[in-house]
């Protein structure tokens, strides 16, 4: 069994967990996600505690626009589905289609990030809602910005994988890498579901 994993054409059913290295990555990454849950919980807790401390600055109810948030939600949710499509093609050992769907995921991710930047610029310029305007604004930008940074990191991660492996094709060495990047991308969506519910929707309700 001196088979080169960089050239394996016949992938097993779960290529992401077929090697010891892959299994370790898989396990370690879920461990990391457990930690990320706690990290975001501290940011959510801070936000919930400070969301009414607006001092003289604007409140969430005044500035949040649900139309934009809905659009961002649909874009991110769709990008989650497109990365599921990418993993579907990975399991069928179709490297080109996997790359294509990852590419679509990346484009949607950039659209989301662009809208978020637009949103922040809009708050700062039109409402004078800066990072240090109030405890509420600081908690808001920290929580939502941290999520945005996760999106940016996820994009860089997926793009790097796509470029680095473009000539290698799919194999037992890089299948776990792609799989884990897609888990990360789904996790970003998990966090966003709570952000749009707790920050925007509950902020609008008051």
């Amino acid at each position, binding site marked *: 069994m001196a088979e080169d994993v960089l050239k394996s054409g*016949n992938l097993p*059913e*779960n290529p992401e*967990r077929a090697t010891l290295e892959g299994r370790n990555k*898989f*396990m370690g990454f*879920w*461990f990391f*996600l*457990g*930690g*990320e*849950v*706690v990290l*975001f*919980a*501290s940011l*959510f*807790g*801070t936000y*919930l*505690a*400070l969301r009414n401390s607006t001092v003289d600055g604007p409140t969430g109810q005044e500035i949040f626009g*649900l139309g934009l948030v*809905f659009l961002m*939600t*649909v874009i991110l*949710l*769709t990008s*989650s*589905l497109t990365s*599921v*499509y990418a993993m*579907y093609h990975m*399991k*069928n050992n179709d490297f080109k289609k996997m790359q294509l769907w990852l590419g679509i995921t990346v484009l949607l991710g950039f659209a989301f990030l662009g809208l978020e930047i637009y949103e922040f610029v809009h708050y700062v310029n039109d409402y004078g809602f800066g990072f240090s305007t109030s405890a509420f604004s600081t908690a808001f930008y920290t929580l939502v910005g941290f999520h945005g940074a996760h999106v940016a990191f996820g994009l860089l991660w997926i793009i790097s994988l796509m470029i680095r492996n473009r000539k290698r094709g799919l194999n037992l060495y890089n299948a776990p890498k792609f799989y884990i990047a897609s*888990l990360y991308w*789904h*996790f970003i*969506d*998990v966090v966003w*579901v*709570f952000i*749009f*519910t*707790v920050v925007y*929707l*509950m902020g*609008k*309700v*008051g």
Partner: protein
Amino acid sequence: MADNTNSANQTQKKQFYKKKHREQMKHQVITFAMMIAFTMLAFGLVMAEVDAMFTVPIILVLAAVQVLFQLYYFMHMAEEGHEWPAAMIYSGVFAAVLTILALTIIVWW
């Protein structure tokens, strides 16, 4: 000869898995449609300005269900061999609930 049956088996296996994957993908698309529906329901409730005492619990439940869909189907936690991932995420959720409770109760007190 042995090689022939072997490769015939291989193609058969491949076709079987392809079909299985297509079935799974269909479920994923249904999951996606339901998540979009939950999102629209949550936004709709807030936009229709239904009473906050009613809206807030409902949208929190909708978010929780949507996240479970994401974890169990999109992130494959429903598939075999995900006992440890589940243990890790639920430990995280446990600590998360404590953190959020502690921080909000301190301020509310």
